[in-house]
């Protein structure tokens, strides 16, 4: 089988159409199971009480926000070096999901912070760098949406994602460094380092639920982009 075949929108479109429901179902099942494990089965944290349960959303969201940007940069490299339209489409299909997860991470972080630290926002290293990551997503989407020519929008977005991903480690390092210079603002959110087995199971389930959700949504969005850009014969063939 030639995997290369799926790099063309015409063969990708029906494939994505078959795959996305699978990932959507996996995401739903894992989310239901993970939330049940996390909210009802996992033991109460002896320091933070019930509030800590927000980690089951917060941590996967933060990871996904970070990870999706790197995946976008990877697709960006493919799009620029091999001039493949599909990689650019996947890159753009992923951006809103990445931004959503980053926003969720910030939002749940704030909700968690209020009862734990008594404030919605602190300039803690991780929250600050997540905020900068959110701004990177905003910049990416703003740029790609303002360019009318799709080809230029794709390539400009790809370059921006690559430049951003090269900068992410520097930004993370600098923010951590900045945080360490201003002692007293450092809080530890992880509480106890020991996690009960039920907590681990819930966390793993939620992480994979987020993965499956991201893949499903990206596939649906990529299909929408193909319908928007490609001539009808590319995506009409599905019925046949």
């Amino acid at each position, binding site marked *: 089988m030639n995997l290369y075949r799926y790099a063309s929108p015409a063969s990708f479109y029906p494939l994505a159409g078959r795959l996305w429901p699978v990932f959507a179902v996996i995401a739903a099942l894992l989310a239901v199971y993970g939330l049940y494990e996390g909210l009802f089965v996992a033991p109460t944290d002896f320091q933070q009480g019930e509030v800590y349960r927000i980690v089951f959303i917060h941590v996967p969201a933060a990871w996904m926000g970070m990870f999706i940007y790197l995946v976008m940069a990877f697709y960006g490299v493919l799009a620029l070096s091999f001039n493949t339209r599909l990689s650019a489409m996947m890159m753009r299909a992923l951006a809103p999901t990445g931004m959503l997860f980053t926003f969720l991470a910030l939002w749940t972080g704030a909700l968690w912070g209020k009862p734990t630290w008594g404030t919605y926002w602190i300039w803690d290293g991780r929250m600050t760098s997540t905020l900068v990551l959110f701004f990177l997503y905003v910049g990416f989407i703003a740029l790609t949406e303002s360019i*009318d*020519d*799709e080809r230029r929008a794709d390539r400009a977005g790809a370059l921006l994602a690559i430049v951003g991903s090269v900068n992410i480690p520097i930004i993370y390092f600098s923010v951590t460094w900045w945080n360490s210079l201003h002692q007293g603002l450092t809080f530890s959110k992880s509480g106890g380092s020991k996690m009960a087995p039920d907590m681990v199971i819930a966390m793993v389930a939620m992480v994979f639920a987020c993965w499956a959700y991201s893949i499903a949504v990206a596939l649906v969005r990529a299909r929408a982009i193909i319908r928007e850009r490609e001539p009808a014969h590319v995506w009409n063939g599905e019925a046949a």
Partner: protein
Amino acid sequence: MTTAVQAAATGPLRAEGLQVTRGPRQLFSELSFGIDSGEILVLRGANGTGKTTLLRVVAGLTQPDQGSVQWCGRAWGAKDAERRSVCLYLGHAHALKEELSALQNLKLALALDGIEAGTEACAHALDACGLAGRHAVQVRRLSQGQKRRVGLARLALSEKPLWLLDEPTNALDAEGIERFSALILGHTAKGGIAAVATHLPMPFQSARELRLEGSA
């Protein structure tokens, strides 16, 4: 749509199977042509049929969706250094800095081309293009036709073999057109090549024409 010229595709410059799509519109596809040494190709076609785009594709400014541009049998890459030392592209815009003088502009343009031209040579070329006494004037004070003539002076001093000219006679008066004609014929007499996109009548007879029809 280009069968008439395809037969002659043997010159040093060859374009094969070019396809360019802009947004939903396909400007041209499977476009092939060649230009021989000492030959001029005139690109014709209604507005929006891709004359400028085709020149930009040859120059390497625009990447075609498909097809290639070859020079002496070797296909040019997107960032080909040879391509940039072969092509001289005069675009629709004058490519002049308004705040600098004609002479300064000419020297800067040549410096970018990697040509070291002395003030005297530049002044001489400007004189020859009908800009005597206007060398030190800021370009913003020159008329459209005079700005074109600065471009002509650049052609006169360039040693690049392939000229890609977009509406070179726009805004030129009869005398300017004559100078342009002399320049381009001198260039081809030395074995140079030129592709000219225009909707105006050209002062030379010998040129082949490539007509872009535009696709539905």
